[in-house]
């Protein structure tokens, strides 16, 4: 098992290098001179030269990429922001916990709605509850979450004045963003839980458990859910990445100072080192989460565990 984890960790390295290469290359070939774009038309030749010197823009593509990797690995240095000349790493790292918290709360909302509703739907297939919750799940998937966020602000903050419309410090401030970001994921998890449970419930070992007189509640929670969990966990992992991406929109609606908002502002100001740093942080997190999910499989499923003994 340890060997498996170690190997998977090693495999993360080429993925992260690849992500860096892609974002670096894309932004390298973006038309326009960053020095000119940042300093404006009035800037003198000397100023421009100084800017290029500070940000290492005079070197060629390969040298710059190698330097970027070297600095990132050995000094946790992702370059300086073009705008305020602050280290990108510190800037992104200071905002990262907020984004992670937002995505985490979204997953939490989604799991606590999706799994119970999915289980009940599956055990009472074709009942009224099942139909209603499946329609809600479809609506949840269909609503653009930024639109839903705007409508929720309108109703809960403007009309009813129950909850604040922006910020992310107090519990009240977190409710609307967490619901906004978690809704579509809740819908996806509900549907996945339902179909996975339906598949498992028809298996022979469930009939065996019933035949030996096992309590229905125990059959559902132990025999069925345990075996239905793998696809559900997979979806949760994938959705987490989706939520990290979706945080960009949610942060911009609720004025949450996370990585997503930082990146959107940076893109508008052509502050590429910050954009690159943000993408890198999120991609690395997403990869680590997926690795964690794969390890979780092994933990959940003895069949997989035995392969890595």
């Amino acid at each position, binding site marked *: 098992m340890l060997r498996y984890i170690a190997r998977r960790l090693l495999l993360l390295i080429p993925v992260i290098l690849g992500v860096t290469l892609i974002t670096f290359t894309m932004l390298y070939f973006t038309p326009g001179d960053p020095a000119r774009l940042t300093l404006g038309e009035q800037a003198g030749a000397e100023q421009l030269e100084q800017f290029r010197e500070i940000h290492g823009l005079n070197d060629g593509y390969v040298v710059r990429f190698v330097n970027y990797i070297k600095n990132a690995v050995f000094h946790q240095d992702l370059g300086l922001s073009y705008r305020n000349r602050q280290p990108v790493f510190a800037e992104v790292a200071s905002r990262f916990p907020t984004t992670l918290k937002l995505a985490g709360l979204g997953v939490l909302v989604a799991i606590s709605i999706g799994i119970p509703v999915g289980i009940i739907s599956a055990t009472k297939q074709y009942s009224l509850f099942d139909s209603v919750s499946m329609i809600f799940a479809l609506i949840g998937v269909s609503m653009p979450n*930024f639109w839903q966020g705007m409508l929720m602000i*309108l109703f809960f903050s403007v009309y009813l004045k129950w909850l604040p419309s922006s910020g992310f410090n107090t519990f009240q401030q977190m409710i609307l963003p967490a619901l906004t970001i978690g809704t579509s994921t809740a819908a996806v998890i509900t549907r996945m839980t339902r179909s996975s449970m339906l598949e498992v419930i028809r298996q022979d070992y469930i009939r065996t458990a019933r035949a030996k007189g096992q309590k229905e509640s125990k059959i559902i929670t132990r025999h069925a859910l345990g075996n239905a969990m793998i696809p559900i966990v997979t979806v949760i992992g994938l959705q987490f990445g989706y939520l990290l*991406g979706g945080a960009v929109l949610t942060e911009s609606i609720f004025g949450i100072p996370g990585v997503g908002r930082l990146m959107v502002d940076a893109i508008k100001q052509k502050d590429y080192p910050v954009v690159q740093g943000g993408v890198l942080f999120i991609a690395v997190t997403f990869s680590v989460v997926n690795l964690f999910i794969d390890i979780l499989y092994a933990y959940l499923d003895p069949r997989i565990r035995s392969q890595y003994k």
Partner: protein
Amino acid sequence: MEKKNNTPAPTQQVAQKRNQWKEVWRRLRQNKMAMVGLAILIILALAAIFADVIAPNGFDNQVIKDRFQTPNSTHWFGTDNLGRGVFDRVIHGARVSLSIGIISVSIAIVFGGLLGALAGFYGGRVDNVIMRSMDILLAIPSILLAISIVSALGGGLFNVMLAVGISSIPGYARIVRASVITLKGQEFIEAARAIGANDSRIIMKHIIPNSLAPIIVQGTLGVAGAILSAAGLSFIGLGLSPPNPEWGAMLSGGRDYIRDHMHMTLFPGLMIMATIFALNLLGDGLRDALDPKLKN
């Protein structure tokens, strides 16, 4: 006698092939939800095609004295901050949003399908190189990848299509690769090879038609995802900009006025929702109709 029995065989085969899609259509037709989805999509498509007839004022007809009207008999969905009819804009927006959805998914299917087919068919090193690159792309959440591409290329219709398309390539590559690998081992491929068919013929005539089912399903749902991504891009100001009536851009424009004039944001959002809802219904229906195993 022998000869007589053999001659009708080719026609019989053609008839059977046609029947296969007929059978899918028959199964799909029985699914009421899928039919509702299909009906909504047909209405939307007609609205997009005949936008100039349905909304002859166009999407940028500014009549400042009529601004901020709530829905009424002349302006069914009200007017916006520049006095443009929200209904007119939403109908013209259908054209933009649907074409973004369809074209970006086509880009993704063509390139993703090609890469997946090559990886699955040749295996070995080709497979490794292609799929590891796909893994790298998959490590970046797709909306973020689209955002990075748009920030490098700039906004605008074509770049948005390209960005959304590229960011969904890995998904299709994976699906096609998986079905190619399953197909590759089957006897009819071996038979085709035995009678001397070359690689390109096997891929074009045997592998692609047989791996269509999962692509059709994924493509239908993919159009929904693409429309949502494009709307998201426009919403944060990186996709299409005013006066373009793309639904996400309209939401972005209505955002500042939501407190007093919520109809400006309500209708574009409802349009997105109806479209995605319909595509999901149809996609689910297609999945059931194309996979007879589920229907027992």
